[in-house]
């Protein structure tokens, strides 16, 4: 009986450590789509086109051959955004010299977060648009992209700041597939996420 208990206890410990035993190749996340030949292809970020803090057009081509981290925020957001921005800044600083990774922040309040406002925000954070794009555009188009990145974004009068949204940071690979995500308000989860980014960059 006692050995059985020990066996299960050690099994539990081993199972609990699975994340550290996970393979070096990250999974393809999201709901798979059906390809033209009926084959299953991993979820793919669709075409988009927005304008960043320096009035550059930012679209899928901007990230050709690169991975990027995407999130959704707005400047006047009184809830989770400052925390997620702080974590995005950690990622920015860690991969500052890594040309194969960029960051993409979508504003959920384009009515207020104009190019000029985003420019000021980026300037205050001390970041530039060749590494971290803050994009604005048509609100419906931005909201439509949120679920593609496994986030939600809804107008909601009852939510602080008027927008109900989630704070997940999403890692997209050079083939537009989602490879990892984390809770952008949890520094420990972001640590793990940054290790995932490194794993992705190590892929051939």
């Amino acid at each position, binding site marked *: 009986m006692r050995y059985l208990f020990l066996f299960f206890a050690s099994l539990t410990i081993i199972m609990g450590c699975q994340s550290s035993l996970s393979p070096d190749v990250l999974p393809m996340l999201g709901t798979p789509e059906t390809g033209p030949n009926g084959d299953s292809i991993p979820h793919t970020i669709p075409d988009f086109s927005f304008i960043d803090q320096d009035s550059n057009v930012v679209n899928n081509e901007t990230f050709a051959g690169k991975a990027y981290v995407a999130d959704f925020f707005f*400047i*006047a957001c*009184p*809830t*989770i955004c*400052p*925390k997620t*921005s*702080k974590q995005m*800044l950690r990622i920015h600083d860690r991969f500052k010299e890594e040309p194969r990774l960029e960051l993409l922040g979508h504003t959920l309040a384009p009515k207020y977060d104009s190019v000029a406002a985003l420019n000021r*925000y980026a*300037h*205050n*954070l*001390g970041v530039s648009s060749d590494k971290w794009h803050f994009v604005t555009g048509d609100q419906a188009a931005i909201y439509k992209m949120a679920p593609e990145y496994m986030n939600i974004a809804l107008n909601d009068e009852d939510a602080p700041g008027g927008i109900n949204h989630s704070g997940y940071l999403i890692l997209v690979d050079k083939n537009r597939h989602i490879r990892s995500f984390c809770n952008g308000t949890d520094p420990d989860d972001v640590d793990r996420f940054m290790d995932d980014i490194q794993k992705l960059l190590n892929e051939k």
Partner: protein
Amino acid sequence: MKNSLIFTVFAALLFLASCETYPYQQGKILYTNFCENCHMADGTGLVGVIPPLAGADFLTKNGEAVPCIIRNGIKGDLDVNGRIYSTEMAGIERLTEFEITNIINYIHTSWGNEIPIVEHLQVREWLKPCEKNTKPF
């Protein structure tokens, strides 16, 4: 008899548990609920966007302005440690002067800050002249 003994033990335990050695427990809880999202759990704020509270010269230089900022928020430029911050802060009107006092004293005694504590009567005085959306200094 036995019941009353158990009751006494639990009452004593409860009493001890509630007697935290840290005096600004309410301030800490209120800070977590109302301030932490922007000013962060470690009081560092967000570089260039949201001013820090840890090591902020503003707290000693403009201490009398802080209660009004907590109650009414602030719009416009704010100089903290030589850097200008212009992100608008929303006020928290529902806080009482006691709660504001406890938040300030939590800030004054956290993250390495060693700013003298303020009495609630002092905070009451500082709150008197502030009207909504005026710059109180």
